[in-house]
């Protein structure tokens, strides 16, 4: 039996089937091994899919052998293949890390359920990315959301519970908005397949429902991707979730939401005149700038590192949306590349913070004083990733910001160049807060760290830090894939 043509289905089904198996095993070591195998298999499949797409172009897979508008179609194009690699890759790195990390943060009896939830979340995120069907996006969005709520609530602090509840409310409102948007589109086009929808929407005479659908989808997805000012759920959720969960979510969840936004904007609404008639670009630009400045400014005043970097995530989402608002190939290239680069950078930071939690017992500014001496390698890693957040040359963050600047220049908007640089200064400020505490202060007497970072946590974190550096120097994978994906999306507009 030849598995190659079935890779798109297996991409989601492998983690999805591994999840109930972990429940049947009910034993944390076996569950861990199974989850490890499944997540690595998912990563290998995503890499193979990426290669296949780069070689032959878009892959379409009809589930149940029902042709596209009647059945559900899986559709892997350059953009989704790229996002798949990011999600599956981060999962493959975070999972080995999580074993030691949850040891202190999650009650022992629940460990196997942690892996179940992790796998479900992975399957959900992959399912959103790979599907070519609007309603299927919603279903898998809910798979990933529900498992995310549980993962966050497994945090040891009681505030994790409330953070999870708030996310549940906000997330469900967002998902319902998305359903309303999909419903309106369905009522106007009679189809749920995204590509089919895109083709038929051009012929829709009455554009008011399409406008409303655009509004509902934008608001709903923005809730999910924590676009300022709809970001309130994010800082608490990231701050109180178990470290492995923060790392995985920070690197993937909001990025997949960005992907969904791109998918709807360019593959569905792209064909309609609606998009051209609305001041969407200006609105996006304003929100992006507001997010970049406000969230970064709030980040400076945080007293807990996890919260600090969570607000920084909200700010960084602003850059991604900024690139999108240019509505040009180079802007999209910057967005997609930043999606990847920021994903691995933030993943690395939260993994390192997890090590800090393990040794120092927390990540408040008071606890990390003098961390440079106590945990030199970990501190160094955080600083490297911090440089990437700022956008210092030689790091991944620089590459995507550079393309963002180029895109702004291409539009002849000098003031934007100035604003991007100015907002990077805010990033300098919040990264400096860590540097100051870790290297220029003496450890507090009342904070006693214990133990060392186990290699199973240190190594995966180091891998991501190294990746942050590597993709700052070799841009052929990130920028190459991103520009080809951007070209594909812009093609849809014509």
């Amino acid at each position: 039996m030849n598995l190659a043509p079935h890779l798109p289905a297996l991409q989601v089904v492998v983690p999805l089937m591994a999840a109930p198996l972990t429940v049947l095993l009910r034993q944390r070591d076996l569950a861990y091994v199974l989850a490890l195998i499944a997540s690595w298999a998912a990563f290998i499949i995503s890499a193979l899919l990426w290669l296949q797409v780069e070689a032959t172009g878009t892959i379409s897979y009809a589930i149940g052998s029902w042709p596209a508008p009647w059945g559900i179609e899986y559709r892997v194009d350059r953009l989704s293949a790229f996002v798949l690699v990011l999600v599956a890759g981060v999962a493959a790195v975070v999972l080995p890390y999580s074993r030691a990390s949850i040891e202190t943060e999650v009650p022992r009896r629940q460990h196997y359920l942690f892996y179940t939830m992790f796998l479900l979340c992975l399957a959900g995120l992959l399912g959103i990315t790979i599907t070519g069907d609007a309603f299927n996006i919603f279903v898998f969005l809910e798979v990933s959301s529900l498992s995310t709520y549980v993962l966050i609530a497994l945090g040891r602090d009681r505030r994790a519970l409330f953070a999870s509840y708030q996310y549940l409310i906000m997330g469900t409102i967002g998902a319902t908005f998305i359903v309303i948007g999909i419903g309106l589109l369905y009522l106007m086009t009679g189809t749920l397949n995204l590509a089919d929808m895109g083709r038929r929407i051009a012929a829709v005479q009455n554009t008011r429902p399409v406008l409303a659908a655009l509004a509902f989808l934008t608001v709903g997805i923005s809730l999910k991707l924590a676009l300022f000012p709809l970001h309130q759920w994010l800082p608490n959720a990231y701050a109180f979730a178990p470290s492995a969960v923060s790392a995985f979510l920070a690197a993937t969840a909001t990025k997949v939401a960005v992907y969904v936004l791109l998918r709807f904007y360019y593959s569905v609404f792209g064909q309609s005149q609606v998009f051209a008639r609305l001041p969407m670009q200006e609105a996006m630009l304003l929100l992006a700038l507001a997010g970049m400045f406000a969230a970064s400014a709030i980040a400076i005043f945080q007293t807990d590192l996890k919260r600090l970097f969570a607000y920084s995530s909200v700010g960084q989402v602003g850059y991604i949306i900024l690139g999108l608002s240019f509505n040009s190939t180079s802007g999209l290239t910057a967005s997609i590349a930043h999606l990847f680069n920021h994903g691995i950078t933030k993943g690395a930071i939260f993994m390192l913070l997890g090590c800090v939690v393990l040794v120092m017992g927390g990540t408040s500014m008071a606890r990390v004083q003098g961390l440079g001496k106590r945990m030199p390698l970990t501190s160094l890693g955080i600083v490297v990733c911090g440089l990437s957040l700022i956008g210092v040359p030689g790091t991944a963050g620089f590459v995507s910001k550079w393309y963002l600047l180029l895109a702004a220049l291409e539009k002849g908007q000098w003031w934007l160049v100035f604003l991007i640089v100015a907002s990077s200064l805010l990033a300098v400020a919040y990264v400096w807060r860590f540097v100051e505490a870790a290297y220029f202060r003496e450890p507090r007497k009342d904070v006693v760290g214990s133990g060392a970072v186990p290699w199973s946590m240190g190594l995966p974190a180091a891998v991501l830090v190294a990746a942050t550096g590597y993709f700052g120097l070799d841009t052929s994978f990130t920028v190459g894939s991103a520009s080809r994906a951007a070209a594909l999306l812009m093609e849809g507009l014509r």
Partner: protein
Amino acid sequence: MKNDLVLRVVAKLLIPFILLFALYVQFHGDFGPGGGFQAGVILAAAIIFYALIYGLDRARRVVPEPLVESMMAIGVLIYAGVGVAGLVLGGNFLDYFVLDPNPVLGQHRGIFWVEVGVATTVSGVMLKIFYMFADRGKVDE
């Protein structure tokens, strides 16, 4: 409620019928309204009813917790297993046509097993949630 004779007798009489009705809804879903989800809910309701009348512990003895937890997982596995069976027999994922030499019968077979999977998971989950909530209450008192 545990000692009320009338309730107990009525429950004894009713529960088999509820179970039967669940099966009817399950297998008649092809012809009338109903299907795996509804059947699973009714099935779970029958056992919850039993637990309310006879007490949680006795219900646990009839339908033990590990079984319930396994049911949640097995249902999903049955469903996905049908999909994989389609793969193995040379079709796409969730392809029912290949499940039988006659494609239409293959569809019937696929739908049947898929509905079984749904019912298993749904009833397992509903029961488990009920057990969980009931447990919390008991220790709280």
